[in-house]
């Protein structure tokens, strides 16, 4: 189910994150790329080079917005001034859907700039879903929420992460940005089966998939986005597209960023798994 209501019925292929070290290469060489994901906050400015670059990118490429500061899970109300700027940017980019994280990160108007894990309770799910609906109604585009990697679990939680994710997206009637690297990192940190997570996710709501690299420390894994995708994550990716269908896929590489070509080549490795999923589907269908 590549095209669905949660990604604006689009059928995007394999994209990469648009990052500053690659601007000059992209603008000069105009490489073939299915689509770029931009970090919304980078371009929520009033002018200058960020918007000049964005406008030139938009002339040539499809762009999808991904944010880091909507904090759907924070108890406080959405920041209206921020939403107005975000809406202006969505009009500029014509993003078919917009994603942000299923997390909290602001308290009483103070921002952590981090993606803090939710307490998995029904009340938290209700509040989060209410905010997602409010944001979607204001922005007038489909919303997909991304599962975050986490390093802590709370005593107050009443359900698993995947049950919480399901509760939120069903209540909000929104999409999922399924980050398979985050599922893997959290599964190692909390000791759950990542396949069980994937099998529980409502597959028809998956609008997009994220893949990325992480770093292994002695006692935990950290979601660093500074490596190629590791084998266990590719295996989870294969499992995800078998369940969800071939879905718009995005490689995140945010630190120690290598050349554009290296990043793009890493992303295109997803094609091998997509071919495998298609072949398996064909066998099942025959």
């Amino acid at each position, binding site marked *: 189910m590549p095209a669905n209501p949660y990604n604006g019925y689009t059928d995007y292929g394999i994209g990469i994150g648009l990052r500053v070290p690659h601007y000059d290469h992209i603008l000069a060489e105009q490489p073939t790329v299915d689509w770029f994901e931009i970090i919304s906050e980078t371009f929520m400015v009033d002018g200058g*080079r960020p918007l000049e670059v964005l406008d030139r990118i938009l002339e040539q490429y499809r762009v999808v917005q991904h944010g880091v500061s909507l904090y759907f899970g924070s108890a406080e109300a959405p920041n209206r001034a*921020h939403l107005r700027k975000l809406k202006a940017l969505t009009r500029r980019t014509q993003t078919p859907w917009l994603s942000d994280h299923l997390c909290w990160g602001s308290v009483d108007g103070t*921002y952590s700039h981090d993606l803090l894990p939710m307490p998995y309770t029904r*009340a938290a799910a209700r509040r989060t879903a209410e905010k997602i609906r409010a944001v979607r109604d204001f922005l007038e585009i489909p919303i997909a929420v991304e599962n975050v990697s986490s*390093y802590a679990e709370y005593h107050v939680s009443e359900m698993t992460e995947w049950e919480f994710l399901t509760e939120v997206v069903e209540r909000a009637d929104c999409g999922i940005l399924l980050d398979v690297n985050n599922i893997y990192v959290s599964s190692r940190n909390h000791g759950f089966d990542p396949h069980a997570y994937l099998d529980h996710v409502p597959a028809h709501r998956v609008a997009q998939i994220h893949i990325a690299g992480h770093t292994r420390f002695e006692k935990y894994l950290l979601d660093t986005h500074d490596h190629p995708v590791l084998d266990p994550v590719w295996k989870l990716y294969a499992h995800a597209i078998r369940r969800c269908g071939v879905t718009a896929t995005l490689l995140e590489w945010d630190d120690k960023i290598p050349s554009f070509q290296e990043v793009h080549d890493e992303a295109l490795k997803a094609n091998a798994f997509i071919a495998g999923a298609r072949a398996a589907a064909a066998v099942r269908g025959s």
Partner: protein
Amino acid sequence: MPRPAAKIRIPARVGSTAELAEFQRAVWGLVSRPLTPGHRMQRRAADGRPTREVAGRIVKPSDRLTALERLEIYNRMYWFRVLDSLHEDCPGLRAVLGERRFLRLAEAYLVRYPSRSPTLRDLPSRLARFIREAPRWTRPHTALCHDLARFEWAQVEAYDGAARPRFAAADLRAADPGRLRLALQPYLQLLELRYPVDDYLIAIKQRTALLRGDASHAPAGLRPGRRSRVPRPRRQACQVAIHRLDGRIYFKRLEPAAGRILRAIRAGRPLARALAAGLPPGRRPPPGAADRVQAWFRTWMQLGWFCRPE
């Protein structure tokens, strides 16, 4: 000894939005508490209780990490992220204070003024104000640091501030100077400084570039000693415009009269009154003043600094 803050309230359950808010305040209080000098979580929470005890009431331990160790990951990530961001935005302040003092200043600033914006771009916006309010972090260079914090923030504003359609020369021809009002581009920043920090920042940038070159192929004669520092500037009042051209930031020194004219235009005065602001009070224009003002306007028009008032 400072009195401990009110006891951190940790709800036993999160069954309502109010309890969610209370829960998030409790976690945020721990995550945003400054790290120890060894980059660890402090032993005591803000209310004086052992952090281990408070963390243990909120977070489950794993088979490899205690509750405190798990929360410490977030505590460290928070501080590393915000300090990294300020570090990158403030090369001048770092050069004046040195890395350790700069980090102490940045931490104290973020405790007093934590981020109130969804984007990290705005993080240094109140740093100059904090330096003025709490001079002990920058003494004896407070005035210089205040200038630098203003200047470094002005660069952020100039980089991605709004640009409006330029005022065209044709718009001036039939206009009555007594009534005509111009406006300055929103991205244009005008600063009156006590220290020539524009030159100082350029020197720091050049030194940084040379040090980078030193790691590769810079000619030996151009390599600065690793320990050599750019000398701190001496007090010398000046006025600087920070502006943008083709996406790049430039600094332009302004004569005092030019600065007064531009500030009068920004304040919305009609052109004739703005020009009068450039004259010393109660004096006749010095010889050649008209030519100088004309030359300034020609340059400012070429740089696209003027736009129509909204």
